[in-house]
């Protein structure tokens, strides 16, 4: 360890940290605190600071009577319910299969991963074309196998949210699979070997060894997916703009609309802070529960 006297300033350390920390204070830490301040005001960028007025908790009260915000929260929750269980189950199965039961597993792992690293704009573009009600590949396939009433997808109130959920699952599959594959590396092979001797088949082994042994990974992924899901923005903004009606409006996209379309920056900042508090609470719960996991193993 450095034999520096604690009372003296360690100038070397200061020099190493300063570039990063000063920039961090200017561009991240200060804005976080500044946005808290803005959230208690009525702020329109075109009126500047002169036209700003302090409104107390008005923005926070308003959001709980704002039907658009409530619809956004509801859609976010539906999104979580509709995507995460499927994502978890599917990626656990894929990871188990890719882990040791097939040839060219690295090639397939890379293919599954590609949607995750692709530009959300490019992805939204291609899915918009695939979802095209009359010409899109998806409905043409459905018609080819004899389905008459094909969904209107992005243009229909009932199908727009499920359509976005499908894209979201497709995007998240790669990351979840890769994390599960890393988790599988940590399971003791002897468990499977002794189960095999006892005459267990692969399905039984998956149910009674793989699933329980991966529980801490599953927990981590659930939290990560929930937090990520609350920040869904790109796909919604490009593919549906939150419509039709309120069908696909979500929190992150509504914050953007409030702040940069309607120029209600105070209101946007207050909703962003509610989002932050939500994410923060989920993370705290994660820390608490993870400590329990660590004590058990």
């Amino acid at each position, binding site marked *: 360890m450095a034999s520096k006297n604690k009372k003296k300033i360690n100038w070397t350390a200061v020099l190493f940290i300063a570039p990063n920390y000063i920039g961090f204070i200017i561009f991240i830490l200060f804005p976080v605190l500044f946005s808290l301040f803005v959230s208690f005001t009525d702020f329109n960028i075109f009126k500047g600071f002169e036209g700003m007025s302090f409104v107390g908790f008005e923005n926070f009260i308003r959001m709980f009577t704002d039907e658009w915000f409530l619809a956004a929260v509801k859609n976010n929750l539906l999104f979580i319910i509709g995507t995460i269980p499927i994502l978890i189950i599917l990626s656990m199965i894929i990871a188990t299969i890719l882990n040791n*039961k097939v040839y060219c597993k690295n090639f397939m792992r890379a293919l599954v991963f590609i949607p995750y690293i*692709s530009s959300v*704009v*490019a992805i939204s573009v291609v899915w918009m074309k695939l979802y095209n009600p009359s010409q899109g590949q998806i409905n043409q396939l459905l018609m080819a196998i004899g389905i008459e009433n094909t969904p209107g997808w992005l243009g229909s109130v009932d199908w727009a949210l499920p359509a976005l959920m499908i894209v979201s699952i497709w995007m998240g599959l790669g990351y979840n699979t890769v994390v599960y594959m890393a988790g599988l590396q940590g399971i003791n092979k002897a468990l499977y070997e002794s189960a095999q001797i006892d005459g267990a088949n692969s399905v039984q082994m998956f149910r009674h060894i793989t699933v329980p042994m991966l529980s801490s990974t599953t927990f981590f992924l659930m939290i990560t997916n929930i937090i990520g899901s609350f*920040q869904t923005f*790109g796909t919604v903004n490009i593919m549906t703009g939150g419509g039709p009606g309120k069908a696909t409006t979500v929190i992150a996209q509504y914050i953007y609309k409030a702040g940069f379309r309607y120029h209600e920056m105070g209101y946007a*900042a207050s909703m962003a802070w509610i989002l932050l508090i939500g994410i923060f609470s989920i993370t705290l719960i994660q820390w608490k529960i993870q400590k329990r996991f660590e004590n058990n193993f």
Partner: protein
Amino acid sequence: MLSIRKTKKILLTVVMLCFTGLIIYPFIWMLVSSFKPLGEIYEFPMRFISDGMSLNNYKEVLFNQSPSFLLYFKNTVITTVLSVVGTLLTSSMAGYAFAKMEFKYRDQLFLIYLITMMVPFQVLMVPQFIMFKYMGLFNTLWALILPRVFSPLSTFLMRQFFVDIPNEIIEAGRIDGAKEAGIFWRLVLPLAKPAMATIVILNFVWRWNEYEAPLIFLTDKNLFTLTVGLTKFIDEAGVAQDNLILTGAMVALIPMMVIFLIGQRYMIEGLTSGSVKG
């Protein structure tokens, strides 16, 4: 005669290849369509090879549009490269100090870092917008680059890596009378190549695909990056140019794919390092 195990393995491989084929089908369709005239892209089933295929769409989006995708491409490269290089520099220095030096308030300063890692961009965008307006950074590429040079997450990852470097190596350097900067450049950084590769590739992917920041901070279409350039193109092109829209999307994707194929291992290691208790 194949054993039962081998047969099973081959069968599963075929099933999984079909499944992964389904996963990347949107990309295949996009790629094939980007060479086709408008009349052919909505055929079902898709033909992989047709007589009408050419590079015309690429010529059109890269050179004949105004602004051209080549310009968007250039803006994207500038913002990505500058912010990635900056992130690498600041996060490796700070990560090293947090891991291997002793100073007052070290742990408190680092805790602030950990907490801000959770802050979503939605919280930062309003205050950053107001700040950039007053600082004169609004509607410049600096608005995209500067905030991204100081990344708590990258600093955290670098620190995690440096903590694992044995103190003996650094102590040996200090005893030889080397300056801390010399130890860092000559002893520590060469060891940190894998960690640096991870930081570079993760940040490259995030910056290249950035959508919300350019949407908010840029108004001059000559400064647009590929993501916002593409959305602008969609808004203006209408449905009569779907083949060009898909080609534009391909232009945004191709560099990313190349980078991913080169650095796949680092990317996956970096993403999973935080998830599994090591």
